[in-house]
């Protein structure tokens, strides 16, 4: 993973000193809240219902055990003993005091972390495939490019006061685990006919009030043009994005209102100039950064592990864990492990300090000291030897981190919702907890198969409900919490926005509604291996509407 050198470390220290000064001036009354707000947002500090919230940047979701231990320390020393992993691979602390902020940032800086640009109208955390560098289907590791984009976008003098936030995602595989089609810029790594690396460039995807899929502006952009082309896109957006209406200020609206062809023409015109002025990316420059992401020293191992197979035969819980939470690795004898942060009845994506510490130890011993955060709010151990899986499983069990539900109905994605967030209209965590408890039975979960439920507490869609197989949107109806259900969304390379199934449901009704939807699917699917998504794509909303809304006989 990327390691700071003296320059990087000094950059962060300078920015902390700058923010420390801004906080002091705010507390002394020299800065109004209006002047201070964008400054604190650019340092990841939100004001929420109960307290300030700090969103720590986890670049492209990659963490070392040392960093995870520092996050645990911050959770203990400055917060209430836990943190929340988000749908953009970051971590949130919910009980931060503004006056503690500079000290927290110093603690982060010591482990090469920060909270720069995790909020505000600027370029946010560049996210990437959480299986990067490990997946068998990868064309190339997307993370060097994500790191290059991260550096380039840091306190960019031209793009720090955009019309609205700007989100970039990169996938290194045609199997899109980074949800690139619902990002402002989505980048798909590919090779041309000569084997040279480049990107398909997608622009104008997004969720929120008006969900839209991105348009593919370029089929193949050579890697050397990556920064110049992104500068061109950002320049057009900065100049032409709407600033009169917060809900129409994302680039997706500009694409929609200007038209894809017109937008592309504007970007290409700007690109002719930025090509001359943006940093060039010759192979040597990319290789310099890519060297930080060189694969670990895998040992030669047989494709199958006798120890692992034996454990599967004798330990039903382990077998179940392997069936759901263990994924193929590109190196024989290794596997990728999903650590579910969705225990039955838990708050999705939360991890306690002691759990973070346990996981740091496991990663250090068994995953070459590396972890990932997925946009589905789970953690990943990317490089575990099959031989070590039984030991890893036992340690995860001890820490309460061995729930074998990756991708199943209880692996719910949920934003913090009205329990924490000042933007929310309804609570999401209790709905997730109740759904999780309703489907607690593991046999039932496995019988249902892959089913992604995503819950947002408001139209801002931080829970990514638009791309849930079942999406749940909390709204305020005459002062009561009310939940709209969408079906058939997907965040992968077959990206689709879910359709509203019909009238919404009260808090009391919503879990029954979800169960009725699931039961309809189970009863009517062609075969157990026809997934919920495939079934919905085949039959549409009608059978679900009948199940939900038909009058009792």
């Amino acid at each position, binding site marked *: 993973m990327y390691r700071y050198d003296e320059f990087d470390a000094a950059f962060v220290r300078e920015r902390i000193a700058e923010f420390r000064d801004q906080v002091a001036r*705010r*507390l*002394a*009354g020299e800065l*109004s*809240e209006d002047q201070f707000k964008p400054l604190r947002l650019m340092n990841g500090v939100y*004001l*929420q*219902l*109960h*307290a*300030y919230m700090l969103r720590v940047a986890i670049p492209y979701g990659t963490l070392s055990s040392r960093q995870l231990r520092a996050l645990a320390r911050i959770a203990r020393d400055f917060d*209430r003993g*836990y943190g*929340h992993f988000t749908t953009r691979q970051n971590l949130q602390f*919910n*009980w*931060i*005091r*503004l*006056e503690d902020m500079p000290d927290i940032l110093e603690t982060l800086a010591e482990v090469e972390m920060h909270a720069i640009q995790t909020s505000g109208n600027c370029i946010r955390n560049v996210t990437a495939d959480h299986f990067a560098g490990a997946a068998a289907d990868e064309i190339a590791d997307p993370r060097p490019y994500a790191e290059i984009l991260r550096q380039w976008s840091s306190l960019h003098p031209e793009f720090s006061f955009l019309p609205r936030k700007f989100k970039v995602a990169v996938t290194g595989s045609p199997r899109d685990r980074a949800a690139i089609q619902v990002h402002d810029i989505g980048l798909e790594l590919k090779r041309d006919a000569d084997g040279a690396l480049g990107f398909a460039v997608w622009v104008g995807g997004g969720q929120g009030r008006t969900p839209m899929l991105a348009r593919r502006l370029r089929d193949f952009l050579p890697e050397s043009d990556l920064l110049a082309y992104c500068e061109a896109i950002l320049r057009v957006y900065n100049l032409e994005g709407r600033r009169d209406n917060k809900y129409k200020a994302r680039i997706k609206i500009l694409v929609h209102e200007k038209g894809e062809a017109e937008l592309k023409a504007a970007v290409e015109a700007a690109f002719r100039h930025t090509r001359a002025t943006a940093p060039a990316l010759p192979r040597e420059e990319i290789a310099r950064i890519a060297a930080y992401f060189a694969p670990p020293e895998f040992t030669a191992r047989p494709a199958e592990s006798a120890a692992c197979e034996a454990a599967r035969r004798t330990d039903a819980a382990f077998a179940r864990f392997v069936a759901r939470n263990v994924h193929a690795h590109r190196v024989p004898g290794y596997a990728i492990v999903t650590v579910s942060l969705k*225990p*039955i*009845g*838990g*708050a999705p994506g*939360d991890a*306690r300090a002691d759990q973070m510490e346990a996981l740091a130890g496991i990663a250090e011993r068994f995953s070459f000291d590396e972890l990932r955060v997925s946009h589905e709010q789970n953690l990943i151990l990317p490089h575990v030897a099959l031989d070590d899986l039984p030991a890893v499983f036992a340690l995860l069990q001890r820490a*309460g981190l061995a729930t074998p539900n990756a991708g199943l109905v209880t692996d719910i994605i949920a934003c*913090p919702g*009205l*329990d*924490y967030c000042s933007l*929310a209209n309804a*609570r999401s*965590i*209790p709905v997730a*907890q109740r759904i999780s408890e309703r489907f607690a039975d593991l046999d039932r979960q496995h019988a249902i198969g892959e089913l992604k439920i995503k819950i947002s507490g408001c139209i801002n869609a931080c829970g990514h409900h638009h791309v849930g197989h079942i999406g749940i949107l909390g709204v*305020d109806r*005459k*002062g009561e*919490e009310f939940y709209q259900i969408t079906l058939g969304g997907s965040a992968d390379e077959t990206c689709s926005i879910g359709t509203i199934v019909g009238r919404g449901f009260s808090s009391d009704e919503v879990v029954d509604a979800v169960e009725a939807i699931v039961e309809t699917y189970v009863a009517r699917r062609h075969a157990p291996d026809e997934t919920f998504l495939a079934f919905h794509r085949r039959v549409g909303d009608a059978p679900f509407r009948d199940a939900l809304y038909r009058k009792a006989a």
Partner: protein
Amino acid sequence: MSRDPQDGERVVVSANALRSGAVVYRRTDGDWTSDLDTAAAAETPAAADALLRAAGEDAGRGLVVDPILVAVDRIGDETRPRRLRDRIRAEGPSAGSSRPVTAPR
């Protein structure tokens, strides 16, 4: 929006303390407290305006951030917010990791 107090509702004014971010309420003596039961209440639109204005001045002086009016009911010695959002602000999250675990999982 149904989260704004309606005219004629009994209201208190709430904000976040600038330094700590904690939820606080303005008292009649002008201090800010986390104890909702001791918050100053207004029962007419004019009184509500005055309360909000005073809170705005405190915000201008850098004591608090984002003052808002909160509709409440008074039951005996206790003040209870009418709206769910304000109850969550007063009592803390209704669910999730900051609440003590009551049963092992």
